[in-house]
């Protein structure tokens, strides 16, 4: 059976991608941010997962408001980088783990999660940035991917509790997949930020630090919070953090936080990551 090797929570701020594109990795402004990801890169290079399940939201790039899937699952063989207005970024196409994705589709629907299934899909910075943060800029990505997209833009967005339950189901799906492939789960988005309204520019580094400190060891509060509380505490777009709960929900109750990192502001966002392994 396939194996869940660990969970990663990370920001997917688009300015991270721009910084990479502009060669600012080593700049004074960005170096401390990127350096914080080195342990996760080393971990993943050593563990060599076969499949990365990436939970993210589309930011008005692949889906318009004409149809808004609350939950969408990619079952494609490949995913190209989306044109977000600046042209597609020069990164490799992602190879889809379509066999596993179809297995996941079966398991999700059996478990009463009903995603939209996507056979042709471009993926935006929500998936690109996390992949670059943990795998760098390879010629070809060393893993196959399964994108899971969550609507976090148009209300109603799904509840944090539902995200956690999706994580639990994802765990079962991984462990009932009849190969010996290794799977890593990336929950992405956040941390605190707000792009809209007079509160634009709101960040909450204190709450963010607590989040990266506690999402592994003591996530009960985050699981119980309402959507509104997420918005209040982390900003309107900071509510993306609910997607980390999918990752956290698929891990054991007891986890080891192998690494955590926080940096603010990345452009207008509190940015950071955690790397979790099951304790048992």
């Amino acid at each position, binding site marked *: 059976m396939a194996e869940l090797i660990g969970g990663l929570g990370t920001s997917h701020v688009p300015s991270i991608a721009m910084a990479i594109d502009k060669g600012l990795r080593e700049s004074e402004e960005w170096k401390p941010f990127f350096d914080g990801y080195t342990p996760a890169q080393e971990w993943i290079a050593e563990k060599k997962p076969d499949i990365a399940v990436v939970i993210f939201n589309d930011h008005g790039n692949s889906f318009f408001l004409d149809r808004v899937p609350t939950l969408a699952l990619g079952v494609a063989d490949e995913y190209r980088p989306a044109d977000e207005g600046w042209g597609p970024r020069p990164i490799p196409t992602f190879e889809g783990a379509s066999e596993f994705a179809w297995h996941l589709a079966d398991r999700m629907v059996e478990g009463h999660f009903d995603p939209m299934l996507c056979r042709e899909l471009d993926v935006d910075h929500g998936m690109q940035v996390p992949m670059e943060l943990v795998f760098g800029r390879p010629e070809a990505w060393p893993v196959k991917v399964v994108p899971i997209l969550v609507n976090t833009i148009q*209300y109603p967005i799904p509840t944090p509790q539902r995200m956690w339950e999706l994580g639990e189901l994802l765990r079962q799906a991984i462990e009932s997949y009849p190969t010996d492939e290794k799977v890593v789960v990336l929950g992405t988005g956040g941390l605190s930020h707000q792009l809209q309204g007079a509160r634009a*520019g709101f960040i909450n580094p204190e709450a963010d630090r607590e989040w990266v400190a506690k999402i592994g060891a003591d996530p009960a509060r985050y699981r119980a919070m309402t959507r509104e509380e997420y918005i209040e505490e982390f900003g309107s777009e900071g509510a993306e953090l609910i997607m980390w709960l999918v990752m956290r929900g698929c891990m054991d109750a007891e986890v080891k936080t192998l690494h955590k990192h926080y940096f603010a502001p990345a452009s207008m966002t509190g940015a950071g990551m955690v790397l979790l392994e099951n304790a048992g």
Partner: protein
Amino acid sequence: MTTFLLIPGLISDGHVWTATRAALEAGGQRPALADVTTQGDIPEMARDLLAAHEGPLVPVGHSMGGRVAMEMARIAPDRIAGLALLNTGIHAARPGEAEKREAMIALSAREGMEALAERWLPGMMAEGRAPDPEVLSGLQAMVRRMTPEIHARQMRALLARPDAAATIGDFAGPMLLVVGRQDQWSPIAQHEEIAALCPQAELRIIEEAGHFAPVEQPRATAGVIADWAAGLPQAATGKEPAMSQGDRIPDTPLFDRRRANAGYELNKMAMGLSTPEGRAAFLADEGAYLDRFVLSPEQRAAVLARDWAEMVRLGGNLFYILKISAVDPTPIREIGAAQAGMELQEFLDTRLGKVTNG
């Protein structure tokens, strides 16, 4: 949030608005009662109310209260999100009006409010219909709560009333006109006169009611007002960000169905910039590109002006409208600062200033 300011007429009080107040509250609106018993003229009443009640207002005025409401709209049109005028008019003092009013002032001074109520109220009730005893006794009690001084002051304020006919046509916001079918004092024709000057006005007639429609037919009148209030466009809330009503987290416009609907074409226009063809068309002739979408004049102006706060106010969502900044480069932090209403440096210092790492 907008306040629905309930303004009573001559020697009236909150009794007139009991049902209206309850209906507005039931609809999730915020009503408040105006006091116009102390001021010497209508402009002073209007100024007092504007000072006493904060934020965007919808004055709901009955009779003389309607005159005050119109004066408020003249003085501070930006704060008036709508006008509801009941049993009122815009005509100037008519020949003989001064004499009649002075005679009534003399009556209340000489014989008191009870006598005034007896003399005055019958003419205010629906013509040709025996007044409901309960309605009548409620109004009598209300008149008794007033004093001859208040009566005299308000009567003279009415005699010196501003020329609303000359100014009401300037008010372009939502307007509701309500009149009793049998109002002998302010007949339907007076409201049609207002409607002729304000084509946006909605005229509603209350059956089996006279000059005190909100008291004679409380349910029907309150229902008309509450329905109109519920249908007011969010953009009518004046100074506050038009779409923040209903948002529980301050200054945080959740992209809910109302905004998604209001901003659909605006966001669709921006979504079109995620293709090279769309971007080329926008750059070649922005006006022609915008014409492909059904933008409101306000939305179009906001796009042309690159007014980010306004685009968001009109239903734009940053993830879409940000694509405009791909064609006409604007750093995201400047877009943030513009929405926060700050200079960039102030925005960076106060919101994003402190670098924290590790």
